[in-house]
């Protein structure tokens, strides 16, 4: 039940969606692309989101594609997290996405919706940051294929009128050994204190973190510290802690001190898990 009215459109093609946005934007209707829509519905209800025109992109065939094509896996942005889990084409993504919200909600929350959301956590992006995936965007300037690590700095750098269509990931990352843990303050559903996702590729650890800062990230500095094979585990973890991005979240979900405590221990768990793996 949202306390404002909006027009609702369900375009069938990518171009229709892009053109609709331009048209509605020119009319001053502050249009919004709508995938799972859980953000608009929950934030709109408490007046933290507003639009006068919703463009529901779920029916567009490119957006709901799920395909193994050659040496890569392509996932559409409007696929629900449940659909992605069930297909299990990318095990690290399955594990990470399966911890978001709760099971029923994951039938509505979509891949693109989670990645492009305003919420701090956006855990579904982590596996793609680690796998050097490529994103397909479309907007007023046409289609773009961009490596995700070039366009995701805390958030997906979308231009106005642009939206995420698909993400492509190479098989060699899909098959890599992985580690994914979500530590919460309590219970087994809900927001993370820390979610850590990691891949081991060519003997090197790649790590992404959600819940530490008000944005999910992958950090080359942290990876360099953790991959310092000559050093002890304690030294490697200390090196990683020393190069954490800022700010560190400090709120009712968990203090900064507690999040750091949890992260330190997760780094140790990660090193132990991957030391057992010969790749």
């Amino acid at each position, binding site marked *: *039940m*949202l*306390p*404002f*009215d*909006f*027009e*609702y459109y369900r375009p069938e093609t990518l171009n229709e969606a892009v053109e609709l946005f331009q048209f509605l934007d020119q009319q001053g209707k502050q249009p919004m692309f709508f995938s*799972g*829509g*859980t953000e608009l*519905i*929950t934030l*709109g*209800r408490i007046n933290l989101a507003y639009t006068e025109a*919703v463009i*529901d992109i*779920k029916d567009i065939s490119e957006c709901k594609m799920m395909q193994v094509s050659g040496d890569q896996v392509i996932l559409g942005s409007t696929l629900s997290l*449940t659909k992605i889990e069930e297909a299990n084409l990318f095990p690290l993504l399955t594990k990470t996405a*399966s911890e978001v*919200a*709760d*099971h*029923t*909600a994951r*039938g*509505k929350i979509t891949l693109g919706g989670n990645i492009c959301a305003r919420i701090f956590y956006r855990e579904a992006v982590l596996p793609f940051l680690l796998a050097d995936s490529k994103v397909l965007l479309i907007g007023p300037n046409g289609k773009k294929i961009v490596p995700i690590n070039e366009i995701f700095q805390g958030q997906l750098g979308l231009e106005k009128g642009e939206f995420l269509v698909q993400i492509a990931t190479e098989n060699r990352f899909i098959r890599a050994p992985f580690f994914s843990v979500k530590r919460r303050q309590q*219970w*087994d*559903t809900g927001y993370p204190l820390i979610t850590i996702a990691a891949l081991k590729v060519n003997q090197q650890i790649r790590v992404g973190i959600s819940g530490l800062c008000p944005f999910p990230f992958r950090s080359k500095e942290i990876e360099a510290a953790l991959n310092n094979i000559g050093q002890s585990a304690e030294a490697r973890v200390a090196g990683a802690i020393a190069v954490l991005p800022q700010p560190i979240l400090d709120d009712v979900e968990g203090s900064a001190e507690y999040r750091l405590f949890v992260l330190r221990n997760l780094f140790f768990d990660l090193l132990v898990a991957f030391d057992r793996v010969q790749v």
Partner: protein
Amino acid sequence: MKTYMGTLNVNGESRLVTVRSADTLLYALRGKLGLTGSKPGCLNGDCGACTVIVDGWPMKSCLMLAVEAVGKKVTTIEGLLETPIQQAFIENFAFQCGYCTPGFIMNCHSLIEHHPDADDPTIKEWLESNICRCTSYIEIEQAVKSVLKKK
């Protein structure tokens, strides 16, 4: 105020509704179709009291716009008639005030349909989507397992 007229397929019937685009499926079911079995709890997708089944999968109807449900098959608690899980809830005393119960039953029913051999982690994963403030969930677990055992 712009309204939309659309046909919803609810409990096997085609129902024509007039809704604002901003109306949730929960609101349309309760306010326009008189199907008050699905309950407003948190209205935020956390409690599960609004759970229905859409195209065979459990759905929190407070997280869906009514217009999104056009073209989909919706089942509410009113559409479940003498299912094993409903009988099991009675036999196992799996409710007290009953407010969370329709939502739980929809989710349990869907779980059993999808996973007739569900193990404990699967049951826990699915049912964590619903909150009960009266019971301690033990009776609900027993109700679900009694139906799974009979399958």
